[in-house]
C-alpha cells in the first residue's frame, strides 16, 4: 500500500529524530556531560518507526535497554527524554529512571528495561488486558538476538500462544548480543523467527534497514493479530551502528565493518534513496526535515542543561502510591 506524502515525511522525521537524538548523546556521553550506562539504538530506526507508525496510544509497547528509539517512535516527548537522560527532575521520569527505564504509560510506552528478556512477559500481560477490553488493541515487545535466548522470552511466547493474547514479538536481530555474535549465541545457527514458529506462532521476516519493508510487514502482521488470531512474531535483520554500550571499544567488529554498514545498511540513507529515485519526495523535502530536527535536538539539549536538578527530598517520593 502506498503511503501518503504526509505519512512518508512523518516516518522520515521520526527516524531522523531518533538518529540525531542519539548521535548527540554519543557526543555528550563521550565528554562526560551525561553519566551512566547508555545503549544506543542508531541503525535500527526503521524498525521502531516502521512498527510504531501502525499504533495508537491504546496499543502498548515494552522496550529494552536499547530503548530510546522505541520510546521516541511511540511518542515519548523528545525534550522530556533528553531531560531524563541528563538526570533532571523535569525529565519524563523525574530523573529516577534514566536511559534504561524511560516510560510513558500515557502514550502506551510501558518502559524500557535494564534486564534483557524481562519485557516479553510484561507485554503478554498488557496483551491480555487488551484482549479483555476487546477493542482490537495489541501489545508489542521488542527483543534483540540477546533476549531471544532468555527463558522469560520462551515463557512469554508460550503463554501468549496458550492464551491467544494479541501480543507481537518483534525480534531485532542486530547480530550482536552485547559483545557476542549471533552465530555463536543463538544455538539454532539459523534465525530467531523459527523459534517463535516452534511455539506455534505465525512469523514474518524482513529487512529491518528498509523502512518500507518493515512497515508493509507490520501492516500484514497487525491485521492478523488485531483480527483475534492470537500472537505473532517477526524478525527484522538490522544493524547496530554503535557498541553495546557507550564506551564499548568494539574490538569484536570486523575490519571496515562499521564503515560498510554505515554506507550500505543505513535505513535513513536507504529511505532517502528510495523515495527520491521513485520521485515520491525530493531531497529538499528531506533536507528541510534534517535541519529542523537538528534544531529540535539542539533545543532539547539546551533545555536539559538548564532544567531543574533533583533534590535529596526526591529520593523517597514515588516508591509507593500510599505509604
Amino acid at each position, binding site marked *: 500500500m502506498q503511503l501518503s506524502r504526509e505519512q512518508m515525511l512523518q516516518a522520515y522525521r521520526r527516524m531522523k529524530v531518533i538518529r540525531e537524538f542519539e548521535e548527540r548523546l554519543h557526543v555528550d556521553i563521550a565528554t562526560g556531560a551525561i553519566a551512566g550506562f547508555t545503549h544506543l539504538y542508531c541503525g535500527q530506526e526503521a524498525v521502531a518507526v516502521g512498527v510504531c507508525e501502525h499504533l495508537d496510544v491504546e496499543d*502498548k509497547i*515494552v522496550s529494552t535497554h536499547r530503548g530510546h528509539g522505541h520510546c521516541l517512535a511511540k511518542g515519548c516527548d523528545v525534550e522530556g527524554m533528553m531531560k*531524563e537522560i541528563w538526570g533532571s527532575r523535569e*525529565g*519524563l*521520569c*523525574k*530523573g*529516577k*529512571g534514566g536511559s534504561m*527505564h524511560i*516510560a*510513558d*504509560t*500515557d502514550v502506551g510506552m*510501558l*518502559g524500557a*528495561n*535494564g*534486564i534483557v528478556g*524481562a519485557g*516479553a*512477559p*510484561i*507485554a*503478554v*500481560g*498488557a*496483551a*491480555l*488486558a*487488551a*484482549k*479483555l477490553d476487546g477493542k482490537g488493541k495489541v*501489545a508489542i515487545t521488542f527483543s534483540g538476538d540477546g533476549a531471544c535466548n532468555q*527463558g*522469560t522470552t520462551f*515463557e*512469554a511466547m*508460550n*503463554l501468549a500462544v*496458550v*492464551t491467544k493474547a494479541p501480543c507481537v514479538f518483534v525480534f531485532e536481530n542486530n547480530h550482536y548480543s552485547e559483545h557476542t555474535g549471533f552465530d555463536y549465541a543463538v544455538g539454532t545457527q539459523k534465525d530467531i523467527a523459527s523459534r517463535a514458529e516452534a511455539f506455534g506462532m505465525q512469523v514474518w521476516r524482513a529487512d529491518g534497514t528498509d523502512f518500507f519493508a518493515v512497515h508493509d510487514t507490520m501492516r500484514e502482521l497487525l491485521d492478523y493479530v488485531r483480527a483475534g488470531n492470537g500472537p505473532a512474531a517477526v524478525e527484522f535483520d538490522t544493524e547496530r551502528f554503535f557498541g553495546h554500550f557507550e564506551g564499548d571499544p568494539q574490538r569484536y567488529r570486523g575490519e571496515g565493518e562499521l564503515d560498510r554498514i554505515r554506507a550500505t545498511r543505513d535505513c535513513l540513507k536507504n529511505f532517502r534513496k528510495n523515495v527520491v529515485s521513485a520521485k515520491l519526495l525530493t531531497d529538499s523535502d528531506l533536507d528541510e526535515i534534517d535541519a529542523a530536527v537538528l534544531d529540535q535536538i539542539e533545543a532539547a539539549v539546551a533545555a536539559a542543561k538548564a532544567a531543574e536538578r533533583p533534590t535529596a527530598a526526591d529520593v523517597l*517520593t*514515588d*516508591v*509507593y*502510591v*500510599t*505509604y
Partner: protein
Amino acid sequence: MAQMMYRDAVRSTIFEAMEQDDRVVVLGEDVVGGMGTAGGPEAIGGIWSTSTGFYDRFGPDRVIDTPISESAIVGAAGGLALAGKKPVAELMFADFIGVSLDQIWNQIAKFRYMFGGKSTCPAIIRMAYGAGFNAAAQHSQSVHQFLTAMPGLKVVMPSTPEDVRGLLREALRGDDPVIFLEHKALYGVTGEVPDGDYTIPFGHARLARAGQDLTLVATGLMVGRCEVAADTLAKDGIGCDVIDLRTTSPLDEEAVLDSIEVTGRLVVVDEAPQRCSLATDIAALAAQKAFASLKAPVEMVCAPHSPVPFAAELEREYLPSADKIEAAARKALAWR
C-alpha cells in the same frame, strides 16, 4: 459475624472483588485446573481451593490458567497492572519466587519509581508459604524477609480469616504491588469474620493478647504459637502483649515500640532463619529506638540456619514452637 475458613476468606474476598470491579483478573498455575484434560476446566479449581468456581463465573479472559511459567505469570501480572487491570496472580508455593524474582524485584516493585511516579502497578502476588507438611526444602519456606527488603513492595502476612478479608480488600483497593503471603497451615483454620465491607489498613498491627510484662512479636502461623505461650505464662501471672504485625512492609513500628516502653522485654518470633531476618529487623528497631526502655536483651526464636528438613522429627525441630517461645520469654523475664 460468621465463621469462615482462612482459605474461604481468600476465595470469597477475591470473588467479591471480581463481582464488583471488572478490572480484577486472576492468573496462575492450575487456578482453574483441569484445562486440556478429560476432566475439563474446574476439575481441580485451584490446588488451595482459593479460586474454585471462578472460571465458571468469570470465564477464561478473567481467570487465566497459565502454564508452569512463574516469570511469565508475575510479568504478565505486571503488564496487566500497567495496562489498567488489577491482577491477582498466584504463585502456588512461595518458594517459587526463585524462578520469578526478576519480575517481582526488578519489575513490578520498581515500575512506579523508575517511571517517575507516572504509573501504578496494582499487582497482587499471592503465595502459599511455610513449613509443617513434610514438604521439604523447596516447598516449605518462609520468604517474607527477602520481599520485605525490597522497596516498592508491600508485604502482607495475615494470621486469621478476619485479617485475610480485611487485608486482601485493602490490597485490592490500593494501587501498589502487594505480596500476599498465606500460610499453608492456616488454610484450614476457621475463625470469626465480621459482616460488612471492612478493610484493614496496612502498617497497623493487631494486639492478639495484652499484658504488661513482656512483648511477643510475630506474623502468620507464629502468632498462634505466641498466643499459646502467652496463655501458659498467664497461668503464672505473667502478662504478655502478643503483637501480630499483619504487614511486614509497611511495618507498624509504633505498636512494637509502645509495647516495649511498657514491658521492657521483647521476644521476636520468626519462621525464617535468624540471619538478616524480620526478627533481627525488629531487634534492631528496639535497640535503635527503645534502648532506654529495654530491661533485658532481646530474645529471638527463629528457624535454624538450615534448609527446611523433610522428616517429621526434623521439621518439628525446625519450626519455632510454643515451648521454645515460652522458654525464650522466661529467659527474658529472668534477666536481673
